């Protein structure tokens, strides 16, 4: 659905995107994670057709998105910093978007009123709280019936109940309409619950891009207690990313197949050997947690 190929973008000498390449499958929820300044918002603005890349291409459904109204009509976006016309209410913006987006569904707008009960549709949006403004943005975006929904820190400011509500609506759209969702967030626990694909950005490049299952199957957290006081020297082939010790229990973060790693550790006859799945947050930290996020050693 979305193909970003070797995109470069420079801001006054600073290379914000440095040959970024990524692919988002149609009908998937793709989570974009990365440290501050990695280029997440920049690539999202390219994908929504706001920024023009210095080089490279961005295709949505095989069509370039920049200056292509037909493609942009399929995309709805919620940026990290929302903008509404001064003194415009949710209803005013609904009328505006209804004239802009050919797939805008006014009936859905009425139907979704119940999903966002706290938002007064006639109240100026700028006077709403940050969370309500976000709700208003979701309400309007969903009514555009987009084929691609681009979300930049979307649930920031929403209370837990509303977060659940919003994600439920989004996943409903994905399931029923095949909407493709591209979401950037720092809330990795939340992404873990909803994303089926994840891309990790650093310094304007995608370092890692795969399905969440693959990602989680590729790194394992082992808790081991050895019989002897000092731990044995582990084989060099084991790609240990991180080691901690609490009493006699050692915790290893190891890249590789969990079953194979567990089998190799078993030869040391430990008193305790337990393999635990890593959360997305832990994967993010360990994958990028090297020196200054330098992850040269990561084998993709």
């Amino acid at each position, binding site marked *: 659905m979305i193909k970003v190929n070797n995109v470069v973008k420079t*801001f006054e000498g600073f290379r914000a995107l440095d040959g970024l390449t990524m692919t988002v499958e149609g009908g998937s929820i793709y989570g974009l994670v990365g440290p501050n300044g990695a280029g997440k918002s920049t690539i999202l*603005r390219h994908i*929504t*057709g*706001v*920024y*023009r890349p210095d080089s490279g291409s961005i295709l949505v459904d095989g069509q370039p998105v920049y*200056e292509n*109204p*037909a493609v*942009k*009509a399929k*995309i709805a*976006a919620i*940026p990290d*910093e*929302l*903008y509404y*016309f*001064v003194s415009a209410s949710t209803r005013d913006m609904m009328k*505006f978007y*209804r*004239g*802009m*987006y*050919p797939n805008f569904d006014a009936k859905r707008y009425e139907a979704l009123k119940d999903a966002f009960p706290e938002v007064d549709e006639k109240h100026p949006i700028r006077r709403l709280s940050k969370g309500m403004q976000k709700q208003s943005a979701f309400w309007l975006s969903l009514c555009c019936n987009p084929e691609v929904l681009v979300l930049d820190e979307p649930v920031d400011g929403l209370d837990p109940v509303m977060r659940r509500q919003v994600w439920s609506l989004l996943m409903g759209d994905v399931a029923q309409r095949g909407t493709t969702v591209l979401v950037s967030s720092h809330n990795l626990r939340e992404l873990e619950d909803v994303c089926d694909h994840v891309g990790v950005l650093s310094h304007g490049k995608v370092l890692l891009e795969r399905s969440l299952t693959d990602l989680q199957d590729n790194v394992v957290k082992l808790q081991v207690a050895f019989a002897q006081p000092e731990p044995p020297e582990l084989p060099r082939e084991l790609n240990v990313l991180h080691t901690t010790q609490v009493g006699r229990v050692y915790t290893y973060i190891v890249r590789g197949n969990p079953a194979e790693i567990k089998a190799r550790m078993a030869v040391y006859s430990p008193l305790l050997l337990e393999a635990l799945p890593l959360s997305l947050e832990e994967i993010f930290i360990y994958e990028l947690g090297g020196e200054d996020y330098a992850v040269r050693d990561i084998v993709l």
Partner: protein
Amino acid sequence: MNWEVRTMRSVTSCFNSTLYRKTMGRFWPLWTLYGLIWLFVQPLNLLNQYFDNLRWGTGAADPQSYLLSMAKDVPLTLAAGAVLSCVFGILCAMAVYGYLYNNRSAAMMHALPMRRETLFLTQYLAGLSFLVLPHLAVAILTAAVELILLPSMYWSTALSALGLWLLVQSGTALFFFSFASFCAMFTGHILALPAFYAILNGLVMVIYTLLTQLMAQFFYGLPRGYTNNKLVEYCTPLLTLIDACDMSASPVNINGVTTTTDRWFLASPGTVAAYAAVGVVFAVLALMIYRYRHVESAGDVVAIPVVRPIFLCGVSFCTGLCFGTLTSTFFGWQSEALPLSLSVLVWTAVGYFAAQMLLKKSFRVFRAWKGCVAMAAALALLCAACFLDLFGVEDRVPDPGQVTSLTVSGTLGYPYDGGNLRLDNVTDPTQIQRVVDLHQAIVEDKDRADYNRSSYQPGESYIYLQVTYTLKNGSTLERSYDSVPVYQNELEQEGSVTWMANQLLQDRDLVALSYGFDRYEQKGRLLDAQLDGVYHLEAHTLESISLDQASKADLERLWQAVRQDFDQGTIGVRYLFEDQERFDNTYRTDLIFDFEMPFPLPGRPDNTNSEHLTITLTPQADNTLALLYELGALGGDYDLQPHEGTLSRVK
């Protein structure tokens, strides 16, 4: 796909009605305010005047005539309307392109499913509508008032005046809004937009004035300040359009009396049309720049990267010239090259770093000192070139053989009447030679000129001379000399400035040309005469006496008497120094003739204005004095007094 469908799709893609309506709706206070101003100026004013006249007048015919004259005066608001267009043009541009100056709004608007052409054209048309739709509404309301209250025979006169207002006002609005749109594309900061707009509206004239001002401080004789330059004026749209929108009534002569017709004429409709066309060009250029512009430039003072070096150089150059010359004037260094140059260089550096601060949005810009040094070096070269006069500007005196004609004016001798040197279009080779010789003498004597001297020394006086040569190659050369010293002891010293100036003064043909006797006689119509500074014997005051009782024939006789005396050399004699000879041979009384002279204007070839010829009376002007006594202007309580000695008796 058939033609109709393709056309429709094309039109649809260039304009978005939703966005247009939204923009019109969002900024309704702006166009409402603009419309209200014109509503009060045009239809409500007509109604108010009509009903006032109806209430206080004597019958229905008078208010209608009054309303008709008011309706014909509608285009008189056009000059003020040009200023209004200029102000509202930038306000409208700030409104409709405001989304470009904020990251969030820029991202939101550019994510909408439309091309930049559509976005620009829709916003452009919306902004233009803010101005033109109120014009239309006001014109319709004004027309309704006129059609209802005026008899049908006046309709065409009233409506044509209204139509002229609508066309011209919309033309100026088109230009100023398009120009503001053009400026809007260069910046990413909403406050920079009006600044750019104001600066670009007067930039050419300001730079031209600054340059000439700077050069005048270096070069002896170069005219100071702004001098007429058509190109400079055309590049200063507000001033040119105010002039072009000026309205004047056409003059007619009824029974020997000049009055005006009831029709107004626009000073220069061609200029207004040309600026409206240029407005369209600006709009197209704005679109081209918009297509190139990066959305991420929101917040930058200069949004287009290639313009940033130009901005940097422009700001430092103008700051250097402007504040450099101001500082030198403040400290009195105008004619001192080194302090003046240093002042210019310091301000150039200040301007450079100020521009860098604006571009970088940071005060830490002093690392860019190399650019500052380069800029200062360029200005230093300019100052050095001026100081050393590398191009021979100061010493340039044209070869008389290369001069086609010249215009010369100056304060050259006494008395203070119409005989002061003021000659247009001098083509006589001998007279050209005399002026060139004086010019050459002044240049050679430049070291004796002292601008700082504030008082005369005994036996010295100062002359002022301004001369403009038209050369055979079509170019012009203009020089202006202030406070050129002349000395009584050099009156007989051949080749000195004093001797040359005196030669000019004693040339009766040149003096006759300065008074303009032939010009007035050939082109003018003598209307009246008066005496100024006549001594009242009882009241001991100097008074003015009008000769309005004199018949046309008497006035003509008086004119001929003056001419006869001039030919005899008894009146109009010029003196280089205000010495005893001048006091003894001139009265304090001036004879003033009023003439009606042709003064054609664009579209009004028959236009006239009044001019006055002043000539100081002398004891030797027997013919003139005799006729003045005969006509009763002198004699009785009034008499002439010698120049000196009167003052002590005057109350």
